[in-house]
């Protein structure tokens, strides 16, 4: 590449540095900020990607970002029934089941049964379930609810409670006791790699 003049040695060094830079996983950073800063949360829900600028996470460039909020009345789940659209440019790789045909079929045919069978989520009947089917130009993720017993925790601590599944609606953010149990069992936290543009 250098010989052909496509890149300089400095370009390559820069790119290598970018790809190997250790950064906390953006999913945790974004959600923890939204849990602790109402203004940021509103901006995230209103403007999507634009709100990420101040956070120092990869903003990504693929499509429009829409963040949907889980509340006491609404549980959101994300799918791409056509393929596997996902804000991978911000959150990294998807879990394997996200691309699996059984998920992509069942989640829009019988969503309650699907989240119960696949993720052991039993949604109360008074919770409205919304399934978001992306077709490439809009990429979605879920803002999970802040777990109980997390008052006074720092953003860095809160970020550890955020799982990949909780951003798709396939789970909840961890409670502190669940995180402690995982740490005691030496379960490595999920840290998908994000490849910067």
């Amino acid at each position, binding site marked *: 590449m250098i010989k052909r003049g496509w890149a300089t040695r400095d370009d390559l060094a820069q790119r290598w540095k970018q790809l190997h830079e250790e950064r906390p996983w953006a999913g945790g950073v974004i959600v923890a900020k939204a849990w602790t800063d109402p203004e940021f949360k509103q901006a995230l829900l209103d403007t999507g990607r634009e709100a990420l600028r101040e956070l120092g996470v990869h903003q990504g*460039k693929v499509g429009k970002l829409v963040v949907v909020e889980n509340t006491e009345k609404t549980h959101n789940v994300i799918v791409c029934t056509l393929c596997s659209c996902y804000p991978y440019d911000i959150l990294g790789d998807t879990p394997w089941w996200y691309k699996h045909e059984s998920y992509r079929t069942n989640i829009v045919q019988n*969503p309650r049964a699907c989240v119960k069978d696949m993720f052991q989520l039993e949604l109360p009947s008074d919770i409205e379930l*919304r399934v978001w089917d992306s*077709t490439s*130009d809009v990429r979605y993720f879920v803002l999970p609810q802040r777990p109980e017993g997390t008052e006074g925790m720092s953003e860095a601590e809160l970020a550890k409670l955020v799982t990949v599944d909780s951003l798709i609606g396939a789970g909840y953010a961890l409670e502190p006791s669940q995180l402690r149990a995982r740490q005691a069992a030496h379960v490595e936290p999920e840290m998908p790699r994000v490849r910067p543009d």
Partner: protein
Amino acid sequence: MNDTTSKYNIGDAVMVAAENPNGNPRTPRYIRGKRGVIGLVHGVLENVRDHRGIHNPLYTVKFDLSEVSTCHDQDSIWVDVHEEWLSSVRPDS
């Protein structure tokens, strides 16, 4: 936001074309010929990372689950659909 390029507004009742109207093919089969309501208006989006060209305005259309599947739970499916796939219908007609 006053979006003059988009024909439909949030809350408008729409029907998805049954056949591809010679437009963007990325509309899932299970919503073709089905009725829904405009949930989000995105306007014209550029997505040069994914495909070439600029497509018509995009909407997120809310469907009752019972409209698109045999399941009768009171839940909803929200799907991104481009404008050429949609036509107006009278609400509850």
